[in-house]
């Protein structure tokens, strides 16, 4: 029809108007907008004002065109009355806002500026969309490149999304329904942008499981998890079956991270808790251990736990501090009650009757006598 190429914005507008008039016959359509491109080009050439602002919403333009031409209004296919009311309400709000802005003296300058930034927004919304997709799929944002099940797929998706976003911005694949979807998508992208900005500072820190928990569970010293505790008595001899509690009576359980550990040779070291009053307790030290290839299997008859190697054969004896007067100070020998909270430096090794599993290289400390010293495990 036309010999020369129309300006892009005119073309976009005409395409949008045509989209709104899809229900008309080809003849009617041609009648109505056959000359529209040329006429709008003239109109656009009239002034510097951007075409989109002068002509307004192409949907409204198409509706006005219809009405003036005496054609029936566009049938709303399958849309609910509620949806229509909402849509019309939104359009009215938009029109009202537009009118308010048009009255502001600063609006022309600002809107010119914003129009120049439009392509930047197209790129940004593609980035946000890909980041959102990554978050939804559970990939943690790490650094600048989006992470969608991997950085490579994230980068590829970003390229595709950018192209799609820019083409949509330029008016390709346009139809009124898609325009509404696009407006909704833009709103989501704005919200997503806020979300991404909020989550990104935390993305800079490395996601070691350690850091995410905030602090390790169970016993920890300066952030490090001890794998076992080796108590020694006042004479410097190693103790066994020592039950440890804190000032609140809470058992000082070994950290769960220490209870099953993989070794370099492919075997696992599994700690075996002591049984106190019928239940497993993890605060009885030093914890016995066993090596196995399958930590999840039930221990067989041959899988006996052994006492771990002592880190120190002996330690210097404690020089006893002068004991205070006996009035009121809890220096009584530990009772057989495992829940006793008072920790003492009793010279005799504590030995509440325990059902410790038999260890093959030490005599079983099954003697109920509270004064029986436990045999020290063989020195390395």
């Amino acid at each position: 029809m036309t010999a020369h190429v129309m300006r892009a914005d005119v073309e976009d507008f005409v395409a949008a108007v045509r989209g709104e008039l899809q229900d008309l016959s080809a003849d009617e359509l041609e009648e109505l907008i056959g000359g529209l491109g040329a006429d709008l080009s003239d109109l656009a050439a009239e002034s510097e004002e951007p075409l989109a602002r002068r002509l307004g919403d192409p949907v409204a333009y198409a509706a006005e065109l219809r009405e003036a031409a005496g054609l029936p209004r566009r049938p709303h296919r399958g849309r609910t009355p509620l949806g229509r009311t909402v849509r019309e309400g939104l359009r009215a709000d938009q029109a009202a806002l537009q009118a308010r802005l048009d009255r502001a003296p600063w609006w022309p300058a600002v809107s010119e500026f914003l129009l120049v930034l439009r392509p930047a927004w197209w790129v940004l919304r593609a980035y946000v969309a890909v980041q959102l997709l990554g978050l939804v799929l559970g990939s943690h944002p790490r650094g600048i490149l989006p992470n969608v099940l991997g950085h490579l797929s994230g980068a590829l998706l970003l390229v595709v999304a950018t192209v799609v976003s820019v083409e949509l911005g330029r008016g390709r694949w346009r139809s009124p329904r898609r325009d509404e979807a696009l407006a909704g998508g833009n709103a989501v992208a704005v919200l997503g942008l806020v979300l991404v900005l909020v989550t990104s500072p935390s993305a800079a820190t490395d996601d070691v499981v350690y850091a995410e928990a905030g602090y390790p569970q169970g016993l920890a010293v300066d952030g490090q998890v001890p794998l076992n505790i080796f108590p020694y008595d006042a004479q410097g001899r190693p103790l066994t079956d020592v039950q440890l509690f804190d000032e609140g009576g809470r058992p000082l359980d070994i950290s769960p991270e220490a209870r099953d550990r993989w070794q370099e040779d492919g075997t696992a070291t599994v700690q075996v808790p002591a049984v106190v009053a019928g239940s497993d307790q993890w605060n009885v030290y030093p914890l016995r251990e066993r090596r196995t290839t399958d930590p999840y299997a039930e221990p067989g008859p041959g899988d006996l736990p052994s006492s771990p190697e002592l880190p120190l054969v002996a330690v210097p004896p404690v020089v006893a501090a002068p004991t205070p007067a006996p009035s009121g100070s809890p220096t009584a020998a530990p009772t057989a009650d495992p829940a006793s909270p008072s920790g003492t430096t009793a010279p005799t090794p504590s030995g509440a009757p325990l059902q410790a599993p038999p260890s093959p290289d030490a005599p079983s400390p099954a003697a109920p006598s509270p004064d029986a010293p436990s045999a020290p495990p063989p020195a390395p």
Partner: protein
Amino acid sequence: MDTTQLLKGVLDAAVLAVVAEHDGYGYDVLRRLRGAGLHDVGDASVYGTLRRLYAAGALTSYVVPSEEGPHRKYYGLNAQGHALLREQRVAWRSFTQTLDDLLEPRASATMEVVQ
């Protein structure tokens, strides 16, 4: 008074009058209407009116090819269109006369207070 509402009623007549002067295409008619003082007229309304008048049989249309520019669809008045324009002129005169009389300030006490 909201001129857009007023315009809707008389746009047919205005368009017919402009095209009667000499044939024109959409944008041309629009410009002439605006130049005559109808600044608020919407271009979509003008294009739609042209199409409606054509469909009603009051206008003829023909395409003028052009080398350097786009092809233009021109509209012109036919006999039926001229007749319609005459009717509209008469109707308009009668209507404005009636309204002038109605809007003329009446000499009465209540009206003076209002003014």
